[in-house]
């Protein structure tokens, strides 16, 4: 059985307290984000079972949620998941070019991972930053007003500086959130 780091476990406890007694299932979405941050960016069946045990719910309740939401990866991903917006406004301003460029540069297609395990390319739907289209997201960071040169420089930068998986829920936040004073009590 995999296990969260002590900080992440502390944060899980705090997240569960946000919801009424007995409604800990509500914590599932944030806890699955934490799980991706803790376990190499994806949710294996074993990890999902672990999350189910943490929340005291059935594994199937985790599977059905994990398979519904597009941010959860159900197969292994690279250290750096490049999420390129492909929807209308970004497409109007060249998102198709960005995707083709990355595919060519990395030698992979949409949804695939490079052989060295560094990059995964994933096209996603509207990221709500249409005013600075075209855009892509890596971890919690939006890279906006992309040109092909800018894409090159971002990818090169990650290739040299990325040692561990970059997740949406950045590990620095897990540490700081878990270390906070408890908030006010509820009902």
């Amino acid at each position, binding site marked *: 059985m995999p296990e969260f780091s002590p900080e992440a476990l502390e944060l899980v406890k705090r997240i569960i307290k946000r919801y009424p007694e007995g409604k800990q*299932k509500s914590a599932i979405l944030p806890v699955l984000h934490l799980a991706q941050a803790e376990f190499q960016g994806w949710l294996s069946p074993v990890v999902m079972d672990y999350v189910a045990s943490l929340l005291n719910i059935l594994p199937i309740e985790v599977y059905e949620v994990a398979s519904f939401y597009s*941010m959860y990866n159900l197969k292994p991903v690279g250290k750096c998941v490049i999420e390129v917006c492909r929807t*209308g406004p970004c497409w109007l301003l060249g998102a198709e070019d960005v995707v083709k460029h990355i595919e060519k540069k990395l030698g992979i297609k949409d949804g695939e991972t490079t052989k060295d395990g560094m990059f995964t390319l994933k096209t996603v739907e509207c990221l709500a930053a249409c005013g600075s289209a075209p855009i892509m997201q890596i971890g919690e960071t939006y890279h906006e007003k992309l040109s092909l040169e800018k894409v090159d420089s971002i990818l090169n930068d990650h290739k040299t500086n990325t040692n561990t998986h970059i997740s949406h829920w950045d590990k620095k936040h897990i540490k700081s959130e878990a270390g906070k004073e408890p908030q006010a009590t509820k009902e």
Partner: protein
Amino acid sequence: MRQLLLENINVPGINTLEGYRTHGGYKALEKALQLKPEEIVADVQKSGLRGRGGAGFPTGMKWSFIAKPPGVPRHMVCNADESEPGTFKDRFLMQHKPHILIEGMIISSYALGANVSYIYIRGEMMFQFHILQKAIDEAYAAGLLGKNILGSGFDLDLYVHCGAGAYICGEETALIESLEGKRGNPRIKPPFPAVSGVWGRPTVVNNVETISAVVPVINMGGEEYAKIGIGKSTGTKLISACGHINRPGVYEIELGLPVEEFIYSENYCGGIRGGKKLKAVVAGGSSVPVLPAELILKTAKGEPRLMSYESLSDGGFVTGTMLGSGGFIVMDETTSIVKNLFNFTRFYHHESCGQCSPCREGTGWMEKILHKILDGRGKTTDIDLLWDIQGKIEGKTICPLGEAAAWPVAAAIRHFRAEFEEYVNHPEKIKNVNYINS
């Protein structure tokens, strides 16, 4: 330009509690806590404020529906699941002025008698999630959240809850399901959330901008707020402008501004990029009907089209559209309406929750047919088939995603049928469509 929400947005430090308070922040909360909850509801009703997420339903009326069974907690939930293509106003507001949303949440929760409230934010917006969390921490430390807020006896705990990538969770009952830790399948209404929402408790779900607008409503009073704007479109609205324009971005407009001024004035979109001609506009997020240049600038009667709920919908869907979420997508003369429609239809197919057959199957069929046309294999009957399918989705699903998928198809065929026919009759021309502007 009257700025109620974006006021002082460029002031350094406005994202902090101190900066926000220095510029008049939390004055509305102090005022509200002196009023009775029902007085706040009445004031919001007087203001004429309408839901800014897209539906435009009167906010005060929505609040007045909340059930108050004794002993059952009520919840206020903020819909920050901004996912409508073309819309990016809420993300902008939360990033730069998080405290206006928190102030609005406290006032709204007080008005509705909710002691635990949630902000449901898109999972992709993790950056803004942490900004909100920091602002909430500041508010707790200053006694603006928690027990006995500002000595009023009112208690409120406020939490940010993150989604995980699902457009459908912007629909309020899907959002509630998601908040309960389930797949985002919309619920059949009734019962409405005001009676049975999250965990079966009375719940009000409002958009980020709507809740933030409660702050100026309380500050100036509902009657004064109602004087801004035009007719039943009161107040200001955030418009997120994108596409082929010179100055994309988030603009706060007084409702009633002429569309032509919005597109061409240097204060707003600044005209079409590269001096090209305007071809079409999707005025309120990808779900609303696309209008060709002549109909977005002027109504069928020849009157100037205004940025208001009524003027944009003048002529119904035959010659009009909707204000929607304020996601204003501008397309120049080089744009292929058919390719753009394929893109939107693929989006709705991807985002359909799969619960209702007309939407689950219909969106996929429409995507495939459009793909076939763009692949040069289309027939005239395919255009009629598209028209037929969209008509069989509209009004036949649990939630409005069905309409959201059907309307763009109907409008594109209604206004640009000749372009579809051109593709079908001269497939060799498709290759020359300069869709991506360089």
